[in-house]
Each structure stands twice: as C-alpha cells, then as structure tokens.
C-alpha cells in the first residue's frame, strides 16, 4: 500500500512543482489570490479532515479488537467528515463561480486584477479539484469498509482492509495539510 501512496505523492507532486514555479514568477498574484480565498473556511475544512483521520485510527483500533459496531461507527463518521469537507468545498467553489474568480480564460473577477491571477486560480481549482476527487474516492472506500465491518469480518487477525483504507484516507488528509497553507495562508 505504501508503494501506492508513493505514486499518489508523485501525482500531486507535479502540481506542487507547478505551484512552486508560478508562485516564483507571479508572487504578487499568489499573495493577493490567497488573501482573497476564504482561509477560515479552509481552516474548518482542515479540522474536519483531521477529525476524519482520527476517526479512521479509532476504527482500526476497534477493528483489531473485534468490536464491529464501534468500528463501523468510526468508519462512517470518517466518511461523513469527507462528505462535510466536500460540501464546504462546494460552497467555496460556488462562491468563486458567482464572482467570476475562475481559472484561465474564464477569469472575470473585476475586483482582483493582477498579472498572473488567472493562473493562481487555475492552480487552485486543479489542486483542490484533484484532491476533492480523492476525498470522494476515499469516503466511498470507507463506506464500503463500514459495510464489511458490520458483518463482523474484522478481528485481531484480519484487519488489513481497514488498515489499507485508513492509509489512503490519511494520505488524503496529508495532501490537504500542505494545500491549506500553500493556497490559503501565504
């Protein structure tokens, strides 16, 4: 599984490299763009995802001690945090759509006009969009695991699916831990 996680790190890595280049070129646009984004909302989203990670850790603990009911609850809670995250993010996106802060040639936000700003939003939408896609997949995996947990499948000897699903979820959290400051805070 860790090998697979390595591939995901490199997948996002390309976008981080692009971010680094364009931030270097259009420093002001990135500063102003970041200030325009809703950092408080993003902080809440961060808390939500970290809570999801905690829930997944507890789910693994319960799975190993064969407590199917609690494991299932934790898995569903974690999946729920994923959906909450997506909802909050959706609100953010909607807001950007309304004001016209869109990537590339669709950029029409009159109040923020700085060279390179459309590129900032292009990166913003690409990075958070790709991340959100992974959140969706991760939440789906957690729901599926919750169903399996209900049937009492997991125990101290057989808990690996929960561990693997958990690792994937933690990765999704990790990527956001970096996206949050890079896009919203600095």
């Amino acid at each position, binding site marked *: 599984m860790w090998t697979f996680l390595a*591939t995901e790190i490199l997948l996002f*890595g390309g976008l981080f*490299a692009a971010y680094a280049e364009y931030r270097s070129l259009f420093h002001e646009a990135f500063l102003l763009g970041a200030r325009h984004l809703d950092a408080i909302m993003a902080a809440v989203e961060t808390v939500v995802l970290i809570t999801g990670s905690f829930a997944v850790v507890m789910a693994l603990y319960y799975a190993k001690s064969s407590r199917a009911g609690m494991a299932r609850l934790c898995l569903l809670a974690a999946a729920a945090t994923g959906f909450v995250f997506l909802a909050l993010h959706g609100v953010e996106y909607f807001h950007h759509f309304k004001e016209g802060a869109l990537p590339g040639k669709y950029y029409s936000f009159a109040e923020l006009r700085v060279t390179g700003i459309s590129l900032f939003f292009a990166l913003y939408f690409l990075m958070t969009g790709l991340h959100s896609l992974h959140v969706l997949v991760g939440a789906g995996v957690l729901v599926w695991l919750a169903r399996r947990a209900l049937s009492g499948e997991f125990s101290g000897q057989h808990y690996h699916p929960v561990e693997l699903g958990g690792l994937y979820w933690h990765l999704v959290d990790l990527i956001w831990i970096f996206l949050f400051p890079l896009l919203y805070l600095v």
Partner: protein
Amino acid sequence: MSPSAAEAIFPEHHYLNAGTTARSWLLTTDHKRIGLMYMIAVLVSLLLGGIFALLLRFEHLTPGPTYIDAITYNRLFTLHGVIMVWFFLIPSIPSIFGNFFIPIMVGAKDVAFPRLNLASFYIYMFGAAFTLWGMIHGGADTGWTFYTPYSTTTTTVVIPILLGIFILGFSTILTGINFIVTIHTMRGPGLTWMRLPLFVWAIYGTSIIQVLATPVLGLTLLLIAVEHAFGFGLFDPARGGDPILFQHLFWFYSHPAVYIMILPAMGVISETVSAAARKNIFGYRAVAYSSLGIAFVGFFTWGHHMFVAGQSVFDAGAFGVLSMFVGIFTSIKVFTWVGTLYRGAIRFTTPFAYICGFLYFLVFGGMTGIAVATVSLDVHWHDTYFVVAHFHFIMVGAALMGFLAALHYWFPKMFGRLYHEGWGLVAATLIILGFNATFIPQFLLGNMGMPRRYYNYPERFQTLHVASTAGSTLLFFGFVIIFIYLALALKYGRVAGRNPWGSRGFEWDTPSPPPTHNFEQLPVFTHGPHEYQEVPEVSRVA
C-alpha cells in the same frame, strides 16, 4: 549452451492445457497465462508500430511527397512513437517475461496479487482500445511528446490518445507494485537478496521507476487534456503559463521511462550471458547494484531533452553533468558481461547472437547518448536525425535485442519445444544487419542537418534516406522469419525437456512447460542462479 538431446520429455499436465475454455484463459489468475496474453497484445502492438515505421520510411524514399501528405506523415510518426513506447517497449519484457518468470525465479506459486495482475492486463487492453479509437479517427499529429502549446491547441484527436495512455499508466503502476511486493515478500527459503537472479534485480529496479515516474506522466497528460478542453492557461504564455513547465513534467517521467525500457533487457542479457558462457557471472553485486543505480540516477537527468528549449543555463549545465552518471552504471554492466564471456565455453546459439547484437548496440548507442548529453554538442544535434538514430540504437538495437534474446532463450521453457536454430541465426543476422543499415545512415543524416519529424528534405539527403529505408525492409524480413519459425515450433518443434540450455537459472529446475502452480514441490534455494563452477580462493586474481 547447447540444447541437450537427452531425456526430453513433454510433461502431461502443464499450465497450457490446464483448462482449455476461453473463460479459463480470459479470467485466469495464473501469471504465466497472463504473461502469454500480454505477449499477444504486445506483439500486435509491435506489428502495428512497425508498419507505421515502414510507412514513414517509404515516404522518405523521395524528397517531397511520395505517397502520403504532410498531415498524415505527422500523424504516422506520432502514432509510431505512442505505440512503440507505451504499448510495446514499456510492457514488453516486464509484462511478458517478468510476469511469467518472477514468481518461478523467487520460488513462489504466483505473484503477490494475482487478480490485480489480471486487472493490469485488462486495463492495458482498455487503454489500447481508446488509443485505437483515436487512431481510427485520424490520430494526433503532435509527436509522441505532446509538446505544448501545440498539443493544447491542435484540432486533431489528441484527447482519446491521451486518455488511452493515461489508462495504460495504471496498468504499468499496478504491475510495478505487484512485482515489488512479490520480490520483497515471497522469496522462497534460502533465497537471500544476493542470490536473486539478475533478471529479478533488473525487474525490481524497473518496477521502482514505474511506480515513481508514471504518476507524473498521468498528471501531465491530464493537464494537457484539461488545458485542451478548458483553456486554464497552465501552459499558455498569454496567461502566464510556461510551456517549458510542461516539458519539465513530461520528461521527468519520460526519461526514466527509457530506463524502464532498457533495464529489463539488461536483466535478460545478464541471464543469458552466464548461461551462454557456462560461467559464473563476473561481478554479481556490481550488476545487481547497478540496476538500482540506473533506476535512481535515471531520474536526475531529464533536462537533457530540453537543452535548447529555453530552460536556464544553470539547469542545462546541471543536467548535462548529471546525465553522465548513468553511463557509469551502464558501463559497469557491460564490463561485467564481457568479463563473464571471457574464457567461457560459448556455443553460438540464437540468444548468443542477440547478446552480441545487444552489446554492440548498447555500447554505440550509449556512447552517442553521452555525446548528445554534452550541451554544446547537442545544440547542433538536437531535433535532428542524430538523436533519432541514438535512441533507436538503444530502444530498437539494444532493448529489442534483449526482447528477442528473452523470447528465444525462454521459448523452450514457456512452450516446451525448441525452435529451429539455423533459421534463428539467419533471422538474427538479418535483423542486426538490417538495423545497422537503417540507422547508421541516420546518424550521418542528422549530423548533416536533417531535422527529425520533417516531411520534406533537400535532394542531397536522398541517398542516405533510401539506404535507411532499404535497411528497414531487411529488418522487417528478419521479423517475418522469426514469426514463421516460432509459430511452426509451437507445434512441430523438437521437445525441449526441462533444461535444454544447461542453465543454472532457477526457472530451469521446473518442467517445460511448467505446471500451473509452477513447481511439483516448492524449491529450497541452495545455490546462486549464475553459479556454474566453484571458485577456489587461490585462483582469485589479486
């Protein structure tokens, strides 16, 4: 190595006849059957890519239009590149021979994730379907490298082809993960890392590259598609985008990708060289570690494809120097192989012919690689036929020789029959001669200034172009002959027996063809796979 005529029995039950329904093949989890299915798919890709190559070469018989127009020419070289790189070379040795032999070589019954293995195959076919669809609708004309901003603005069907390759990337990644886990965790009793066959080391290194590099390709192709469809401006200078960023991202994958293509071939040569010379491999650790060395160092060099693209002088200089390091590991291997052959008891068989071809092509292709890695020289040679000849020397000359060596060396093991050696040598000669005739003129052309991917050319280049095309026809005939005698051998070949080459490789301890679960009983490993004689301490050269 000589095919032994003693006790050649054809086992009654083996993986080929264990279940004969279509379902037992299409839903198999047997790594050997999956390897064969890949073989068919990969050989079809080779045929398709090869036909496109011939079409290109025939167009170049005369300057100006010969029988196709310029746009068709552009589409043909794009498709030739896409198919050969992604559908033939990258999967060729790992997905066929890696799948077939890695479990046997480590003493396991199958790979770590057999169903994932089958999924990898179907993902490959799915990706191939998309690309085929794109081809039927005219194909892209961007070149296999999809440089922006042309690829993001062209009206040709770029997106299905991008999608096809993107999907194929998943197949590569899953295969890589499968091999890494298998090699790490499923080695039989007594099989330490330092007793692994060198082929396994090579595939291990290849899998590392596959796992680390392919995601970046996936992202890059996705970005082109998004840019093409939505105009986000990521690579569009008018919006602040940087086309060179695309090249950085693309080559970060594609340079290691060429090592995905050559490393397995090197692994095959390591296997066949000690079997051919019936001698201990000259420096086992050197070869094993250099496989990893190439896998890692290959990632540091991508900017040498961009010397004249507009990247900074600092980057260009750094990449030029870093590119030299790969040569070190390759030469370690070449010296080791030659050291193995020296004073060996060599029988000149078809695999050995391919070994010879491989060594020659690797050394010359590799040296021209070091040459083009020199920034000042590359300024003259970049985007000329010199570069084309360089990479074809390595990819076709060396990697394809490795593939053919693997095919011939392991044919008796996979099918239990021997092919006709005489015809094998004829075909090998044709291929080696044909290859030289095709690509040496291209070095000269490139040096004289003939640009690559150009439809027209000045009259004075025509002689060399005609020579190159003649060579390619010879190459083609060589392949036709191989196909014929191998197909005939499947049914009419002499029974091979367990170990016709007298090799000490682990895969030769099991019957030919192997039973479905690879062994009659799981092996315990007590010797190395390349050990042909005891090495007494006294005879070590100081």
